[in-house]
């Protein structure tokens, strides 16, 4: 590791984040104010107050993470993954986990409900960044790749068991993106994608309510009073909003959409700010994604690069999924809109994640040795020559293989 001059954190990434979070607090106020009082809380400001506290704590986390060297996070990778898995397990223990609406996703700690799946998302990104960087181009071999996918698979299964298909999908998509960026062969990626599709289809067919959601997606007015209710009202919110929107606080559909301050908050925004407002929102996320990926692109360390790209992609994917759901572009699944939706765990984890990306942006000119990667590469050679192996035709360096290998190392 070479000592290098620290840079300024990425300005535009921070700006995009701050604007999104502030807009989020406003939207949480807007969406929840009218009805928070009669949701048993007795306080119209209930959600706003909490969201402000979450945002402040989140920004504290962001600035701390920004000050710390990215490699410091790396040391906590294994423990983070371990804690995530334990917490995900605890969610299912009756008496510890709390279920709302048939899904056990929360662990109540005082007035706060911890959502372990949010932490797990970040843990998976940290884990994959660590492992993929450590293994280097050895990731292109299935044997090296598979054990890591099993770890991700375990996390995804635990999230899925809550059940929380949306978060599980975010975990899997983010894994896919990191595999791609880390250099996994396209052929294998396609195979995994097909496998994932099959698995997803199986999950949908297995659970009647998921099938219902898919059918509703295909025809939102099919079951207005049941599974189509939310999406129909989201579409009505979008339509009513039109080009310019009704104006702040003028939205109507927030009186229909259940818990409008959470996953469907975008619908209220679309209704009140119109298509123009949605373009601004999309612009902010595009700015965020662009700056995040730039940080990853400019880094001189595979770990830092993968970490930045992983976190940015995770946020961006989640934003895309959320908007896709309330525009009825994909079957309904509950993921919060990053930085905007009400929810402490999500907001705080996201902000800490952004802090990590910003931390990476401060150490762009540092190179990081990956001694393990060399070892894995050489182990490949050792195994080839040190052990008795049955010769296999596929390992013969054919012309095609030589060409591909050359392309890899080009």
């Amino acid at each position, binding site marked *: 590791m070479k000592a290098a001059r620290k840079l300024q954190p990425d300005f535009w990434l921070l700006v995009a984040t701050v604007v999104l979070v502030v807009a989020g607090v406003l939207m949480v106020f807007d969406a929840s104010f*009218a*009805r928070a009082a009669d949701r*048993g809380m007795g306080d119209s400001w209930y959600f706003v107050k909490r969201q402000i506290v979450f945002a402040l704590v989140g920004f504290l986390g962001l600035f701390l993470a920004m000050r710390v060297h990215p490699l410091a996070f790396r040391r906590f990778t294994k423990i983070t993954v371990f804690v995530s898995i334990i917490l995900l397990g605890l969610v299912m223990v009756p008496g510890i986990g709390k279920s709302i609406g048939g899904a056990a996703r929360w662990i109540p700690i005082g007035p706060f409900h911890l959502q372990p799946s949010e932490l797990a998302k970040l843990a998976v990104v940290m884990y994959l960044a660590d492992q993929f*960087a450590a293994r*280097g*181009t050895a990731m292109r071999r299935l044997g090296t790749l598979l054990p890591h996918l099993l770890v991700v698979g375990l996390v995804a299964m635990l999230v899925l068991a809550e059940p929380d298909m949306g978060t599980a999908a975010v975990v899997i998509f983010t894994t896919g993106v990191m595999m*791609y*960026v*880390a*250099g996994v062969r396209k052929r294998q990626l396609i195979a995994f994608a097909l496998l994932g599709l099959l698995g997803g289809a199986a999950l949908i067919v297995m659970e009647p309510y998921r099938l219902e959601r898919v059918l509703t997606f295909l025809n939102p007015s099919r079951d207005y009073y049941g599974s189509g209710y939310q999406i129909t*009202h989201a*579409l*009505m*919110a*979008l*339509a*009513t*909003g*039109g*080009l310019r929107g009704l104006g702040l606080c003028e939205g*109507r*559909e927030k*009186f*229909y959409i259940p818990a409008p301050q959470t996953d469907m908050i975008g619908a209220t925004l*679309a209704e009140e700010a*119109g*298509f123009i407002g*949605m*373009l601004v929102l*999309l612009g902010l*996320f*595009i700015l965020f*994604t*662009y700056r995040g*990926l730039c940080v*990853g*692109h400019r880094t*001189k*360390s*595979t770990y830092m*690069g*993968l970490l930045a*790209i992983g976190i940015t*992609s995770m946020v961006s994917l989640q934003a*895309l999924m959320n*908007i*896709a759901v309330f*525009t*009825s*572009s994909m079957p309904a699944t509950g993921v919060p809109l990053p930085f905007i939706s009400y929810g402490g765990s999500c907001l705080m984890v996201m902000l800490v994640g952004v802090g990590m990306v910003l931390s990476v942006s401060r150490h762009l000119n540092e*190179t*990081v*040795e*990956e001694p393990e*990667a*060399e070892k894995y*590469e050489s182990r490949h050679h050792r195994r080839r020559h040190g052990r008795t192996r049955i010769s296999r035709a596929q390992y013969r360096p054919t012309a095609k293989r030589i060409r591909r290998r050359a392309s*890899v*190392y*080009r």
Partner: protein
Amino acid sequence: MVLRHLRFLKRRTVWLLVTFAVLYVLIAGRLFYIQVLNNERYCELAERLRVRQLEIPASRGSVYDRVGRELATNVPAFAVYVQPKKIKDRERVAPQLASLTGLEESAVVRAINTGGTFAYVGRQLPVGVSDKVQEANLPAVGVLRETKRVYPSRSLCAHVLGFTDIDGRGLEGIERVANKQLAGRNGHIVAEIDSNGRVIPETRRGSVQPVDGNDVVLTIDAYLQHAAEDALAKSFESHSAAGATAVVLDPHTGEILALANCPTFDPNDRRGVQPGAWRNRAVTDLYEPGSTLKLLTVAAGLEEGIPPTEVIATCTNGGIPIGRRRIRCSLHHPYMAGHGGVDMFKIIRHSCNIGAASIALRLGPDKLYAYEKAFGLQDQPGSGMPGEAPVLPLGSPEAWPAIRLANIGFGQGVAVSALQMASAYAVIANGGNLMSPQIIREVRAKDGTVVRSFSPKLVRRVVSEETARKATEMLIGCVNEGTGKTSKIDGYSVAGKTGSAQKASTTGRGYAAGKFVASFMGFVPARNPRLVICVVVDEPKGTHWGATVAAPVYKEIAQKAMWYLKVPPDEPLKEDQTSGSNRMNVRKVNHRIGAGNTG
């Protein structure tokens, strides 16, 4: 090695950025499509779901008696509802709600188990209950304001008033026929509502104020009504009758001053009431009038010039043959061998069937039919009360056999309602005019201005004043010396006629053994009538004579009415014969009106 991996990463990151950019553009396109290009359909749908016309119920009008006593009005009430879908803890909520509202737990459970978004637990609950429910602040339980129709005098006048359903729509009686007047017009607001049906603040688009219902003033006098119900109920109960009716009319205007039926009910709480008890028997039930109809036959005879003192027939205990049949009189002491030679006075006094039949035979079917019709027995009375029985036609008089003509003469083979009979007697009482019976006096707006007023309606002149006067004398004779002695009132001249008709068999042929309709009707004071009173008791047990079953009711109503109406006595008082309480009443009247010297 790391460097190579890094290069790899960088190249693919560029592609990743491109992919993200494409996805964002797609999503933006999708938003543009939904929000701008193709937003009409969902805009319309949203409008349809959100914008509602919310009713503002109009206040239903009250019903008053002729002097302004409240007979039906509204009080604020509350409905308790649940939102079953939102209830998570059914086992806890149900018993709690049951104890708060005082309703049965099974009813609460039933409401919760409907599983919808809204179900009433209880309606028209008093204010105290709603306060308790609101204080308890149970989840998914709410309270709505509504009004409850109440009848402060309970069963008083129940058959005339009728009742409403729980939403205030008139179902029976005046509530039903005057529903349009009473109901008023509901107002509404147009506003946007949320998913719980509440108005979203500041979305009101327009409103129409409700127009409250008008008040209805009846011709009924609550005091006379009470007197009539009281007296009738005594006879109804002591004779275990199947039913009973009393009608009190003002003979000069046709206004119904009291209309009582037994059995009765409390319109405030109709649970467990036999639907038969709702029936306004005075207009819905037809019966055979029997001897009371003889008055009409005699009046027809007088009008057609038969001298009242001419001996019309000779009544013997063998009766007289008509065709292959024979008609008889029901004979009492001291006329066990028949009434002998009878003139019209005697026919009425002693209720001689043979005499009445003879007059009928002398008049012939066409004339008798014409008079029955003129007295209103072949028309619905048109009182304005619902459920008036359709007329049972007498058929074409040319086709009447002699026996039918004779029977109609003394009141058999004719079906009438008590109200029809009362109107017919009012003709004699008022000097020969048939007045249309009337129940609604006027309709007033809430501010007291008269919207519509109903004046007395003359249907036709039926007999001359002279005929009426003579017929009245005959009725006085019946009360003073004949079958109607039990209705004599000290200090007043009373006109009346008894009736004790056998009931027609339900099989359609002949008469039912042992089943009678006892009746008494007439007017007081006889020479300056203020009231026509008609009492009909259906199937009394033990005794079936109009004189014993119906006449005491008549007497009690008349006595109380005379006192209440401050009618000066027109006959000398026989103090020693009157009972204590009655004497008191009469004295009081005398004292009040300073009419002691009339006695």
